[in-house]
């Protein structure tokens, strides 16, 4: 446990120095923020999915709960984002409690489908209610905290990093605690765990609450960072799937798997989106801009990045079913 915490501390310290090394570079910092956010989200999901084996397909609901609550509090009640973050945690936990009491009675396919249904109900309700800004979303022009300029990127970089460190530390702590052992017992065999007298619902809910709270903080930070949210940005099923994909590609149930998944997938998505590859080939003179291939790379590849994402997903599931970390060691 101590060793793992030390590694987390060393990695965090190195990550904390990064913005100083790369200097003022909002584009790169922005991508690093996205990476840290995805790493935190996948790690938070991993607490429920990796330990307890409960694969939630509806984590966007908690992310959205954090984002929406924060924006509503900021725009109507209190200009200090910290209040928003705390309120977001409360709302996410309430949703998690309600969700938990419904979906934890179900297993297997049904659990996954039910978690989607709950998340869709949250999304559609947010879209239909007036106080959430409905289809128009919520736009905020300025946010500040204790005189810190929240227009710059570094506060969010460190905020996300802190969230990731907290999430990883909780994961380590859980791994050594009674709760952690119970959750692993539940993952291996629910019926056997129940016959040992483990209160299934209680421990599953506990894992969900921790996971939901951490996810909502990521949502709050995202909302204050982007300063505009609507249901398609923060409550969409796509987001839930991205979180799971990140965790699975890195390695479910491992400490660093979700982080590695994020470090790979986020830059990959950005490279595909911004068509860096096509540009690079043209710039290096390997492909002429006016040739057929050049035009295809510049014009069509831009349409194809979601396609590439699909292909990568299929290849990963077929050839790396236990994730990248699964390659190096046996996953329990």
């Amino acid at each position, binding site marked *: 446990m101590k060793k793992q915490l030390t590694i987390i501390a060393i990695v965090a310290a190195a990550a904390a120095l990064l913005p100083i090394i790369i200097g003022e*570079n909002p*584009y790169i910092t922005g991508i690093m923020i*996205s990476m840290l956010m995805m790493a935190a989200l996948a790690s938070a999901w991993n607490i429920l999915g990796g330990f307890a084996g409960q694969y939630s397909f509806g984590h966007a609901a908690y992310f959205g709960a954090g984002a929406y609550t924060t924006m509503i509090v900021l725009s109507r009640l209190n200009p200090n984002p910290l209040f928003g973050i705390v309120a977001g945690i409360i709302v996410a936990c309430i949703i998690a409690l309600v969700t938990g009491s419904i979906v934890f009675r179900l297993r297997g396919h049904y659990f996954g489908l039910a978690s989607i249904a709950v998340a869709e109900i949250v999304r559609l309700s947010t879209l239909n209610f007036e106080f959430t800004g409905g289809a128009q979303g919520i736009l905020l022009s300025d946010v500040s905290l204790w005189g810190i300029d929240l227009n710059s990127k570094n506060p969010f970089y460190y905020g996300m990093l802190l969230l990731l460190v907290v999430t990883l530390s909780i994961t380590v702590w859980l791994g050594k605690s009674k709760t952690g052992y119970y959750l692993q017992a539940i993952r291996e065999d629910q019926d056997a765990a129940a016959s040992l007298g483990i209160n299934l619902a209680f421990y599953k809910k506990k894992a969900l609450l921790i996971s939901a709270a951490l996810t909502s903080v990521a949502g709050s930070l995202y909302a204050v960072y*982007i300063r*505009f949210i609507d249901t398609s*940005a923060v409550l969409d099923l796509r987001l839930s799937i991205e979180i799971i994909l990140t965790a699975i590609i890195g390695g479910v149930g491992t400490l660093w798997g979700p982080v590695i998944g994020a470090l790979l997938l986020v830059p990959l998505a950005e490279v595909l*989106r911004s*068509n860096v590859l096509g540009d690079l080939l043209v710039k290096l003179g390997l492909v002429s801009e006016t040739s057929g291939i050049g035009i295809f790379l510049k014009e069509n590849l*831009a349409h194809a990045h979601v396609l590439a994402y699909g292909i990568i997903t299929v290849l990963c599931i077929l050839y790396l079913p236990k994730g990248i970390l699964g390659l190096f060691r046996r996953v329990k």
Partner: protein
Amino acid sequence: MKRKFLSIVAAIVMAFPLLAQAAPVKIGFINSITGKEAQIGENLTNGAAMAIEDLKAKGIQVELVKEDDGGDPKNALAAYEKLVTRDGVIGVVGPYTSGCANVVASRADQYNVPLLVPAAAKEEITMKGYKNVFRLNAPANVYSMVLMDAVKTFKPKTIAYVYAATDFGVSTVKTAQENALKMGLKEVANEKYQQGQPDYRPSLSKVKAANPDLVFLVSYDADAILLMRQAKEIGLTPKAFLGAGAGYTTAQFAQQTEISNLVVSATQWTDDVNWTGAADFAIRYKAKYAKEPSYHAACAYEAMRIMVETAVKSGTAAKLQVALKAGSWSGIMGPVKFANYGGFTNQNNHPMLVQQIQNGKYETVYPVQFSKKKLVYPFKR
């Protein structure tokens, strides 16, 4: 004195070819190439590409850096930051969706690189006083205003709303309700729907039961065709169908003559309007892309043309901001000037047009100074 003058002239003459040879200015273009709005995004892509082609033909060179936001504000922000900090563009055209445009607009003053929004409708974008944000198209409130003005003379009494639960749908209907209140129109039905449903008959039956004079519609793409098909099926016949932009202004919709005839819609642009080059643009666009240009294509064309022409003359982002603010243009979107009025900053006070489908063709029917045909009222099957 004379020698000095001569040497300056000589320097200019000598520098001229160098200037012409110098690297062309860089302009960014953020658009929804993928994602939910990809269909409209494609129209913008085409319009912008045609503008670049036309400028090249005139000898104006520019390097265009295209970015896809997929309709996601986070990606739009990454795209903008990449453009201004890495690619070194001095101006950006886009993004298309209101959400993305909102997020990028709020950062434009931080980086001091002008943003010209070609077609996003949300009012807020140019209402926050951002110095570097300019918008070519008319915002959401104008859609309903111009439609209601067009039918005012016929003295309708009641109105029903049927609209998509999207930002544009909700914003437009909100302003329509305000305008209706001013006109003394009574609201008899309000049906908001989720996009992509196969069956709108229950909603339309409710509207039919309320028997309104006007049915105000906001729908995207094919939803518009679906709705009007089912409206015909259940026999909904108000005195006028008023479609606010989007799905009611596509060539595809007009081709469905059985259901679309006499539907009235608001648009930013038509091909029969008497603005310079509009008709010619439509012909060339059709020849190149084998389909009718939508108003989004025209908006993107004109935004790109204005951005590039001004940027080439300015050379730097700061000078470009000043030039955009001071300049005025005239082209396929009529006269363009970025002005401050009624709470807006750097907003082109674009006059919207009302068109009606008559015999499978969009005809401009309002305002009178831009139109050749008269509005047919009441609607009949």
